[in-house]
Each structure stands twice: as structure tokens, then as C-alpha cells.
């Protein structure tokens, strides 16, 4: 396997334009002769499906939910970044690029990130034209808010439901193409394998989740937009159905998996309440604009927060990072919360929480302003915890939220399998070792609306695509493999539920491959995961059969893949002997506990190649070169 990132030459700000000028085009009359499969209907998948159909391609769009609108992008709360500089506060494409490179702790490609910053501007235009009701000022123009890791106000938002509104915009464009007959929707379908013919991605195998039928779908290219793998931790802010199966099966077909250990732990989530806990709920990072984070100065202080006087509180983010204060990036805020809880100063029933306090903001701005800005988030908090955050500080704790790692792609968003393109959170491309807030929506939509329509045309125009049907041997082989795995899972009839295996895997991952990692713990995790995986294949119990809706069977396949992916994450974390972004290795830190990067030895993308079951994956390195931004120690002080 050879990694060719296909980065264009020329000055940074001209790369994308030059590249577009070099890309081959498909004649409009020929586009309708080509079928493209798009798997996933979140921001990346829906925008890609809609845009490719607008260009004239035949699009087949797949999702696991009952409707494309359910995709987990819908849950993004806070906002979307764009370098519009409507606030006249010094923003620019360069600054968004710089913030993103720095925020990613110098582990992403300059060319990709610069393109992302350039395209951010067009995304807002597109969304507004679709009728996305972004927040506005009284003069009728668009409003902005600040977000972590930036000193300008560049985040566009629709109350606390920005992801929902952007997704419904993309979904409406997708449905318009359904209306026009250019997109066919396949809901409640789960992709279980990729079909590769003559070295090119030519189709997928899916299971109809209602009837249990296994279906073959053929195409000229496959676009994977299936999101991240945060659910490997069992408890995360991801939706229950979010999973890595489609991406993992592509990995096993030859797509390299990049930087799997780069996971984002989001600092502001509602703490867990018990063993039965099924997921964690995020409280938007935008809350840190007005909320102040603190813990008691004294260890084990059990007083009610409102009874703890000002001088006995430690506003530790403001103390440690005076320049950015409560708006430090997510990785920094999460580690700081863990540090104070590890010291025994955490609050709440289990001492695993810190306060996010709005009392000052309410005094300063009035309760109505706070209600207008965050009303729905406050309501959500109260519904879950039974506490009123207008009166009592919120309790928050970090939780797994996003995965920066994903399938390796080149500048064209193509994986190491020709014809397999990977978009949005499913790829690794733009966020380095840590993603800044309000950048996931930006990347998903940039990939789908403005990158893939250009690059997929170049692939189709420049590739000899043989006539292939679903009768091809490769389809039969892939379908047989899928059926065998389902039969095997059902035949084990062991004693332990899928849920229990998932929970156990999650505990291993959180304890040893979570917010902070060390070599000994990672080795232990690898051993434990292998043991658990072995037990899974001998002792899992799945009720029912494969001929109708069977969620336990669906989850069993996903957990089986998580049990492999978790190991790869630990292997990657163990090999990366440095701390950067969301990857914090305890052995590599500064005397005051900040992450210590090793640019000399680790300024590369780690892309892992599958070598067969039970074999060690092979590491390939794509060196990262910084021509425009000199990597420095990331400081928010």
C-alpha cells in the first residue's frame, strides 16, 4: 500500500482553485449513465447525495434509520463556523485555517484545512438559500457567537439546534432530488460489506433491517458518509445506532484507517447517573460563552453549590488559561476537569462532575437574555437531571463525543480503495488530533456540497469502469460472507447479552484508551479486548432470528466490529509516543501538565492497513509538512 495524498502544488490559497482546474469533467449527458451509492444521510451524506443528483448522476442513498432525517448530525447543537467576518472582528479565511490547524495540534494537512476554511463561506450561503432559519439580529442580518479555541465570533447558529436545521436543509435538497427522480432512498438498510472488483469499489451488500433480506447494489463509485466510531466506548454522546461497521468492513477490504486513537472527549456533558445508563447527553459548548466553570477549593466539599462563597471556589479554567478562560478548546477543558476530579475536588454524587455556573451571566445580562440564548438547553438539562440551572449551577463532566480518526483519504477524499470516497466524520482528514467546536458541521457540508462533486467527476472521467452486474462473483462472495457471519452470530446461543459485551468493552476503552493513556494501560487494554472478543464469539446470546427486525442482531454485528476497532485504537495510541490534542499520553507532558508533542518523530498521519484476522496491522506513515504555519507549543494561556 502506498499513500499518495495528491496534494496540489502552488501557494496555499491557490491550491484548490488550481486543482479544480486540473480535474477532469464528465459530460452532462453522460452523468446520468453513472450510478453512485451514498451510504449515510447525515450532513455529509445528504449534501453529497443531493449535490451529485443535481449534477445529473443517479444516486442511491442508504441509511439505517427509518428516514434520512434521523442521522445523528441532527443532534449537533451549537453552531457552524464560517470565515464570513460579518462581525468585522478580524476574522478571515487565513485565521479560520490557522485556528483549525492549531486547534488540531498540528496533526492535519495544511492544504485540506485551508480548503475547508475557504469553502466555509459558501456553506452559509447555501444553507440560507435553502431556508435554514439561522439566528438574526434586529436589522435582519445573521447573528454570530463565539466558540472554543477562537478569539473571533464566527459561529452561525439556529438556537441550540444548528445541526438539526442544517441537516433538514440538506435533507430537503435530497428529497427534492427524490421528487425529481434522481435519488432513490433505501431506508432501514445497513451496509455490511463493500464489493471490490478489479481493485475498484463497485458496490455494497446491505441488510434490509425490516425483512432481514440481504441485498446487492452495484455502482460506479461508493461514497461512505457513515459518521464516527465514538460508540466503541459504549457511553458517548453519539446516537444509539451510530456505529463503525460500514467503515470497518471497508478497512477489511483494503481501506487504510488513519489515526484511530484521535478521539474527542467533550467537556460539557451531563454526568452519568447509574449502571443502566444508555448514553450521555451533551450540553452545547456554546454554554461556555456565558457559563463559568468551577469546583470547590476544598477537597470533598459537600455543601450545596449556592452555599459555597466566592473565595472558596476555584474557577480553574480562568485561573490556568487567562487568555481563553472558559473558552479553551475541548481537549484542554476536558483534561482540566479530569485533573480537578482526580484531586478529589469533583462534585455530584460520584465526585465525577464540575459546575457550570450562570449566576454571573444572569446578573449581568438578565434572565431573559440567558433564556433566549440557551433556553432549550436549560430545559433539556432540567428534564434529565430534575434540577433548574437558572437557580443551581449545572453539573457537567467530559464524555466521548467525536472521532477525528477515520478512513484515510487523499485530497480528493478518496480512500486507498479506488472508487471508495469517504466524507465527514467517517474520514480523518481535517481536524488533526482535536476538532474545534462548530467545525464538524462545516466539514461534513464542505465535503458533500463542494468537494465531492468535483473530485468524483475526475475519478469517473479518468477511470475505465467495466460493465459490472450484481451477478459478479465478488458480489456472491461478499453476500455469502455476510450471511455466514449472521448465521454464526445466531448459532452461538451463549449466556451473555450483546449489551453486556458492549458495556464491558466501553469500560476498558474509557479506563485505558480514554482521556489519558499510558503504555502499561494500553498494553493491558489490548490484552483485555482480545480476551473479551474471544469470549464474545463463544458466549454471546442473540434472541430471535434473522428474518425480521432484530435489533440485538444488528447490534451484535456492530459490537463484533467495535471489539476489533477498539484494539486498533489501543495499538495506535500505544505507538504514538507523544501527547497531542485528544491523545494524551501520561508519559509525555510538561511539568505543568500540558500535552507534550514530539514533532520530530510523530508529525505524520498513522494509516493502518488490515493484514488479515489475527495478524498485526501494518503501519504506513504520511508525513505532515508545515509550509505556512510553524508548529509551536499550543498555548491558550
Amino acid at each position, binding site marked *: 500500500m502506498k499513500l499518495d495524498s495528491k496534494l496540489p502544488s502552488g501557494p496555499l490559497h491557490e491550491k484548490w482553485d488550481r486543482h479544480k482546474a486540473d480535474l477532469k469533467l464528465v459530460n452532462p449527458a453522460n452523468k446520468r449513465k453513472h450510478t453512485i451509492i451514498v451510504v449515510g444521510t447525515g450532513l455529509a451524506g445528504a449534501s453529497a447525495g443531493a449535490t451529485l443528483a*443535481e449534477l445529473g448522476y443517479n444516486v442511491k442513498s442508504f441509511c439505517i434509520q427509518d428516514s434520512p432525517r434521523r442521522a445523528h448530525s441532527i*443532534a449537533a447543537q451549537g453552531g457552524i463556523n464560517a470565515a464570513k467576518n460579518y462581525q468585522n472582528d478580524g476574522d478571515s479565511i487565513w485565521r479560520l485555517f490557522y485556528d483549525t490547524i492549531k486547534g488540531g495540534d498540528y496533526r492535519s494537512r495544511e492544504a485540506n484545512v485551508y480548503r475547508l476554511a475557504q469553502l466555509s463561506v*459558501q456553506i452559509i450561503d447555501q444553507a440560507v438559500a435553502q431556508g435554514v432559519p439561522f*439566528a438574526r439580529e434586529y*436589522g435582519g442580518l445573521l447573528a454570530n457567537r463565539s466558540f472554543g479555541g477562537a478569539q473571533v465570533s464566527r459561529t452561525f447558529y439556529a438556537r441550540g439546534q444548528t445541526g438539526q436545521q442544517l441537516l433538514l436543509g440538506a435533507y430537503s435538497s435530497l428529497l427534492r432530488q427524490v421528487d425529481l427522480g434522481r435519488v432513490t432512498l433505501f431506508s432501514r438498510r445497513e451496509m455490511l460489506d463493500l464489493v471490490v472488483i478489479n481493485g475498484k469499489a463497485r458496490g455494497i451488500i446491505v441488510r434490509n433491517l425490516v425483512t432481514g433480506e440481504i441485498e446487492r447494489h452495484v455502482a460506479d463509485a461508493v461514497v461512505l458518509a457513515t459518521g464516527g466510531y465514538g460508540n466503541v466506548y459504549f457511553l458517548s454522546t453519539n446516537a444509539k445506532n451510530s456505529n463503525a461497521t460500514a467503515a470497518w468492513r471497508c478497512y477489511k477490504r483494503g481501506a487504510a484507517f488513519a489515526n484511530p486513537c484521535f478521539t474527542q472527549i467533550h467537556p460539557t456533558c451531563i454526568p452519568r*447517573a447509574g449502571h443502566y*445508563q444508555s448514553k450521555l447527553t451533551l450540553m452545547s459548548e456554546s454554554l461556555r460563552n456565558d457559563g463559568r466553570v468551577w469546583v470547590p477549593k476544598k477537597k470533598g466539599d459537600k455543601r450545596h453549590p449556592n452555599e459555597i462563597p466566592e473565595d472558596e471556589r476555584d474557577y480553574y479554567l480562568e485561573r490556568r488559561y487567562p487568555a481563553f478562560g472558559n473558552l479553551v478548546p475541548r481537549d484542554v477543558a476536558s483534561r482540566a476537569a479530569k485533573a480537578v476530579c482526580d484531586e478529589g475536588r469533583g462534585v455530584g454524587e460520584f465526585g465525577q462532575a464540575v459546575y457550570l455556573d450562570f449566576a454571573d451571566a444572569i446578573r449581568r445580562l438578565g434572565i431573559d437574555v440567558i433564556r433566549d440564548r440557551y433556553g432549550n438547553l436549560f430545559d*433539556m438539562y432540567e428534564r434529565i437531571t430534575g434540577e433548574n440551572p437558572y437557580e443551581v449551577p449545572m453539573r457537567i463532566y467530559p464524555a466521548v463525543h467525536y472521532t477525528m480518526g477515520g478512513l484515510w483519504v487523499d485530497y480528493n477524499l478518496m480512500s486507498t480503495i479506488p472508487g471508495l470516497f469517504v466524507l465527514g466524520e467517517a474520514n480523518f482528514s481535517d481536524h488533526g488530533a482535536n476538532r474545534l467546536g462548530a467545525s464538524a458541521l462545516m466539514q461534513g457540508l464542505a465535503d458533500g456540497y463542494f468537494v465531492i462533486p468535483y473530485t468524483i467527476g475526475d475519478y469517473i472521467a479518468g477511470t475505465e469502469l467495466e460493465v459490472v452486474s450484481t451477478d459478479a462473483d465478488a458480489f456472491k462472495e461478499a453476500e455469502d460472507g455476510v450471511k455466514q457471519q449472521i448465521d454464526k452470530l445466531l448459532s452461538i446461543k451463549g449466556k451473555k447479552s450483546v449489551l453486556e459485551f458492549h458495556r464491558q468493552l466501553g469500560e476498558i476503552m474509557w479506563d485505558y484508551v480514554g482521556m489519558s493513556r499510558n503504555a502499561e494501560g494500553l498494553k493491558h487494554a489490548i490484552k483485555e479486548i482480545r480476551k473479551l472478543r474471544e469470549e464474545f464469539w463463544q458466549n454471546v446470546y442473540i434472541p430471535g432470528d434473522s428474518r425480521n427486525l432484530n*435489533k*440485538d442482531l444488528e447490534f451484535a454485528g456492530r459490537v463484533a466490529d467495535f471489539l476489533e476497532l477498539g484494539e486498533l485504537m489501543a495499538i495506535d495510541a500505544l505507538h504514538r509516543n507523544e501527547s497531542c490534542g485528544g491523545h494524551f499520553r501520561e508519559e509525555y507532558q510538561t511539568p505543568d501538565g500540558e500535552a507534550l508533542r514530539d514533532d520530530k518523530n510523530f508529525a505524520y498521519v498513522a494509516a493502518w492497513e488490515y493484514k488479515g484476522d489475527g495478524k498485526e496491522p501494518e503501519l504506513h506513515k504520511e508525513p505532515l509538512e508545515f509550509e505556512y504555519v510553524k508548529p509551536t507549543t499550543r498555548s491558550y494561556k
Partner: protein
Amino acid sequence: MKKMTLHLRIWRQKDANTPGKLVSYTLNDVTPEMSFLEMLDVLNEHLVAKGEEPVEFDNDCREGICGMCSLVINGIPHGPEHATATCQLHMRHFKDGDTITIEPFRAKPFPVVKDLVVDRSAFDRILAAGGYISVNAGSAPDANSIPIPKEVADEAMDAAACIGCGACVAACPNASASLFVSAKISQLALLPQGQPERKRRALRMIEQMDREGFGDCSNHAECEAVCPKEISIAHIARMRREYMKAMLC
């Protein structure tokens, strides 16, 4: 931690073609902090441990935004808490010893798939009949070239907050989808971007709603009462005006 005992009566139905029935279960280890769906997770763990088939129910984000969860709880879609989707309903709103009846959303255009899972793809088909603004990627003008008064943008956002769960249909004695359809028609009719296709959109979406077999609105307002996002029936009034205007001229 305090434990509650609950008596559950749950609709079990093998598939769309097999008749279903209510089946009783008792759960002894429910805590007030659990969400309603976590309570069902616990029931399912007990069922699986006994080798029985778990109860299927749709859910995904569990944050009240994806619209995938449903359930009629003691006769009320999404249960007793105002402005709360089932996934955000917590067991602290129930008492030790309560009997809770759990059924699927019932409406002819929402056929049962299995147990508590229904098919709501009719909603996609209604939105595909014009519930959009025709704009290709790349052709949009600068976002600030169309100023929209804050009050208008806020009202459009109120309508756009619909999560497409279908509770409005399940609550309506006529199984009307008027609240769902009107939310989209209203959002796009309010905004300047929605004007060029305004009439065509209203006509086509309402025709599609009829074609799917949803009933008409007769102002019961049950939909508004159960809507987890508090979508107002004022949007239905606007939808009717839009339809009349589109028919007349």
C-alpha cells in the same frame, strides 16, 4: 438508590401481518433517574436473560431531537410530560406500583413494523412533494444579501423545530398530519427564499398528505398538546390560508 416496581402492559406484534396484543410484565428495579427508554432497556435485558424476545422500539439520539422514538404511554403519545419526547421522559414522573400501558403510534398511514415500531415513511414522501426550496449547491447569493426581520426568522424557526416524530398524527382523532405538514409549509412561506414555490408547494404537499391516507384537521388541537417541540396549531391556520390562496389564484 430508591427502587420502584412497575406493572407494564406492552403491545407485542410479530410483524405487520400478524395480529398483536398487550402483554403484561412486572419490573422491580426501576429507579427515578432512569429515562423511560432505559427502563425498557432494563426490561429487555431481563427478557433476553430469560431467552425471550426483547420488545422492539425505535430510538436513536435519546436527546429529543432525531424524532425516532415514539410510543403511546398511558394513552398519550410521548407520555405525560409536556413538551417532552419519550426519550427524555424520566421515571421520576411515575410512582412505585404504577401500571403503564405502552402502545405504538396508531394511524393507518403508520403501519406497525414490529411491536412498538411503526413505518413513518409517509412523512418523507410528503416532504418530497415540494417541502423544499429549489436551490442547487453553488448557486446561492451571499447569505446577508437577504435580510430577514428577527421576528420572522424566529417564527420560521419555531415551525422548523419540528422533529417529524408523528406524535401529532397519533394524537389526532382523524389521524391528520396537518401539524407536521403545516410546520414545513409555514416555515417556508414565512421566509423570502420560499416565495417562488409558495403556492405549488402548499398544493402538492397537501395533496400528498391526502394521498397517504391521513385525515383532515377538525381543530381538536390534540396535536399541539402532545408535540414535544410545542409546534403551534397557528401554523395549521396559516397552511389553510396558503392552500386557499393557492387554489384561488
